[in-house]
């Protein structure tokens, strides 16, 4: 052993020691920090803390991908309905460590699968006995769960009914659990947990039910909550003056946080997206910019204190959440080295901001059609029509829904743009790929009455969308160094599952069952396979016994088939399902 190696071993030993002496096989905080340079494993939700969803594995290449075929499949459960939902679906990203895979179904059951020897063997299933009707009645957008986090000998997961659950990795027994969210108030949890240091971080769903959103950190040793950051300020806190009504709209202001965030260890900062204000489509109920809805938040990870925020759609009238993952990229922009935070927003614009201070760097529309604004201010990135003197923003008044103009078509439609399905970033080419919903839809405003108390567990949306026009999709590529679009591969259906980037390809799934690979440069299709059910989850890749596999969960779920199916009528014939597909060469 060289001197250097001794030193490295000593550091690892120290780190392991500081976390209670975990066994050799346990995932350490240090491993999570280096997850990007651990190509055989997929240790955290977005592959690494920067949310790149890029794997450097290169056994499967654009030259041999045509030989990719199903290696094995595994039937999962969780298709049953509950509350207002007729079935559950799969939105999760599988997590893989040393050939052992962990996936969840929509009701939060966790499955541990041994992928060695070229087959998938279920080792255990942890069923958290989620209260289907309690949670399913207040889940706006489906029976969903996006996966687990690993640390030590624990698998951490959420259940729709608001629990954080730690399961022993070897036995499948629940080690401890705590209630983090309250379905009595309309709060549910669908996001995968994020482990940072000795904490696990939870985001919440429920902005359609009058919640006040938050992000919470739980200590892994004491199982107690370390901090809780509300995404809507309380009276007297910074930002409270952006709620200018006189009926306490901020108490039910929405701002959910239902997509897992990212983390920059060099600045100790957590980046997390915040959803729409409530009520979604009655912006006159809540005059003001409505911070921190539709914003990216940069938080001190130890305290939860907000360092900066960047808001995309002030006084949103469209349901344009900014919950999307924040992709942390170091790249030169027009020759200038930058620490960037990239976000592809429901409002149809992709943004790069300086992640050290929240200053706008570049922005561009990534959808074919935007009607709500004529563009972004080149200095600030604000929508061009934004007027700080107005309490209620009008944007392009001809299409912006309002009490005076209650039925309008908006582009992009309220699902986006881009919804939760994650982007992927290729750090070698500095190209960022966005899974796009190319859409317009019709909004009908039904004003909420401020003199009536808000009913718990009832929709609080101020209207709703319908789908009179066909909705399609695309994979859109952006050169991060210029902020320009460099390619668009159009798809017949919207992107409801998300992307994986490899050195020379991009993988995606479609809600008609297709899984496909595109050439990273030309975006030409190289390979596809139809799974026969709806794909609603992102692909990922890993190695087992030294061999590369591509894995994807298949099972239509989410909001689409209940609320948006009229935009894609052919998808009505897709049946619910719950299956893991794993592909390999020969």
């Amino acid at each position, binding site marked *: 052993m060289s001197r250097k190696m001794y030193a490295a071993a000593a550091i690892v030993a120290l780190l392991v020691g500081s976390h209670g002496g975990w066994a050799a096989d346990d995932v350490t905080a240090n491993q999570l920090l280096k997850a990007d340079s651990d190509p055989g494993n997929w240790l955290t939700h977005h592959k690494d803390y920067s949310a790149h969803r890029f794997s450097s594995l290169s056994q499967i290449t654009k030259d041999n991908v045509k030989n990719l075929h199903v290696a094995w499949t595994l039937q999962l459960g969780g298709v049953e*309905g509950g*509350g*207002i*939902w*007729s079935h559950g679906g799969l939105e999760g990203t599988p997590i893989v460590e040393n050939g052992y895979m962990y996936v969840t179904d929509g009701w939060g059951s966790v499955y541990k699968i041994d992928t060695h020897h070229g087959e998938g063997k279920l080792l255990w299933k942890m069923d958290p*006995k989620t*209260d*289907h*009707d*309690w949670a399913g*009645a207040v889940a*706006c*957008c489906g029976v969903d769960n996006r996966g687990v986090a690993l640390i030590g000998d624990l698998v951490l997961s959420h259940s729709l*009914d*608001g*629990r954080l659950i730690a399961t022993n990795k070897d036995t499948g027994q629940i080690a401890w*659990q*705590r*209630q*983090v*969210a*309250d*379905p*009595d108030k309309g709060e549910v949890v669908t996001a995968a947990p994020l482990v940072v240091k000795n904490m696990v971080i939870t985001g919440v769903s429920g902005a*359609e039910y009058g919640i006040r959103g938050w992000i*919470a*950190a739980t200590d892994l040793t004491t199982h*107690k*909550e*370390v*901090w*809780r*950051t*509300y995404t809507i*300020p*309380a009276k007297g*806190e*910074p930002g409270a003056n952006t709620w200018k009504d006189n009926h306490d709209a901020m108490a039910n202001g929405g701002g959910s946080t239902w997509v897992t965030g990212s983390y920059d260890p060099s600045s100790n900062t957590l980046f997390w997206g915040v959803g729409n204000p409530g009520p979604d489509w009655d912006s006159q109920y809540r005059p003001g910019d409505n911070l921190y809805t539709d914003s990216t938040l940069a*938080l001190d990870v130890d*305290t*939860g*204190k*907000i360092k900066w925020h960047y808001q995309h759609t002030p006084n949103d009238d469209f349901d344009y959440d900014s919950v999307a993952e924040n992709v942390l990229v170091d790249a030169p922009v027009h020759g200038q080295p930058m620490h960037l935070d990239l976000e592809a927003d429901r409002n149809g614009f992709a943004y790069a901001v300086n992640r050290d201070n929240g200053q706008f760097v570049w922005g561009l529309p990534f959808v074919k059609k935007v009607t709500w604004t004529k563009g972004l201010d080149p200095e600030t990135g604000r929508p061009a029509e934004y007027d700080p003197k107005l309490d209620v923003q009008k944007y392009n008044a001809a299409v912006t829904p309002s009490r005076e103009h209650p039925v309008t078509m908006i582009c992009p439609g309220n699902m986006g743009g881009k919804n939760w399905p994650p982007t992927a970033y290729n750090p070698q080419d500095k190209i960022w790929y966005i899974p796009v919903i190319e859409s317009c839809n019709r909004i*009908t405003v*039904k004003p909420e009455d401020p003199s009536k108390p808000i009913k*718990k*567990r*009832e*929709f609080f*949306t*101020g*209207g*709703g*969308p*319908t789908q*009179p026009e066909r909705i399609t999709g695309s994979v859109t590529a952006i050169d991060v160094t210029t902020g320009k679009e460099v390619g668009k591969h159009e798809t017949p259906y919207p992107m409801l599952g998300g992307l994986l980037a490899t050195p020379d390809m991009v993988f995606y799934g479609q809600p008609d069952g297709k899984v496909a690979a595109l050439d990273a440069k030309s975006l030409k299709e190289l390979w596809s396979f139809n799974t026969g059910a709806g794909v609603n989850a992102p692909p990922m890749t890993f190695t087992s016994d030294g061999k590369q596999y591509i894995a994807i969960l298949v099972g239509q779920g989410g*909001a689409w088939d*209940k*609320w948006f199916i009229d935009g894609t009528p052919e998808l*009505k014939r897709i049946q619910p399902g719950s299956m893991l597909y794993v592909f390999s060469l020969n």
Partner: protein
Amino acid sequence: MAFPAMMLLGAFLLLNSVSAWAEPSADEGLHVFKSANCVGCHKWSGEGGGGYGGAAANLRRTALSLDQIEHTIRCGRPATGMPHFDPDAYSDGRCYGLKKAQMSAATMPPEPDHYLRPADIDAVAKYVVSHIKGKGPPTFAQCQAFFGDGTRACDVYEKTSDSSGAQAGASAGSAHQHLKIESAPDANAGK
């Protein structure tokens, strides 16, 4: 020997008439309300309401008669989100005198997830009349009758509705877990 045969025949007639004429039980109607996903749009209470999918009617406040309710379930309602549960609703003019050819994508009511047999339509229509129509604000007891006691779905009514409801809640020996939330103080307060 004619006598026992007569008795058998009588019993047969009686049985037959029971199955032909008996009111569908509330259980059957409840079952259809859940399985045909009426609950997905109108909610368990029938209150329906706005939200993401547009407004389903409030069945607690419906002014329709049993016949009209049954008709609505069979035919759906043109140009709205209410599906037609009779597969042949627009084949021969039986619904509003309309046939498929006369209707556009915008006026045609949606297809349901699955169609219902006439007996199921009858059962669910009667359930709407006996358990939902005219019932006022939903109560804990009604909620529990819908979901059973294996869920916390009804807790919000337990806390807000009348004392009989609260007692029913307290005595429900349900298996579900009642974990409490212990949240940290607001991280951005007092700056």
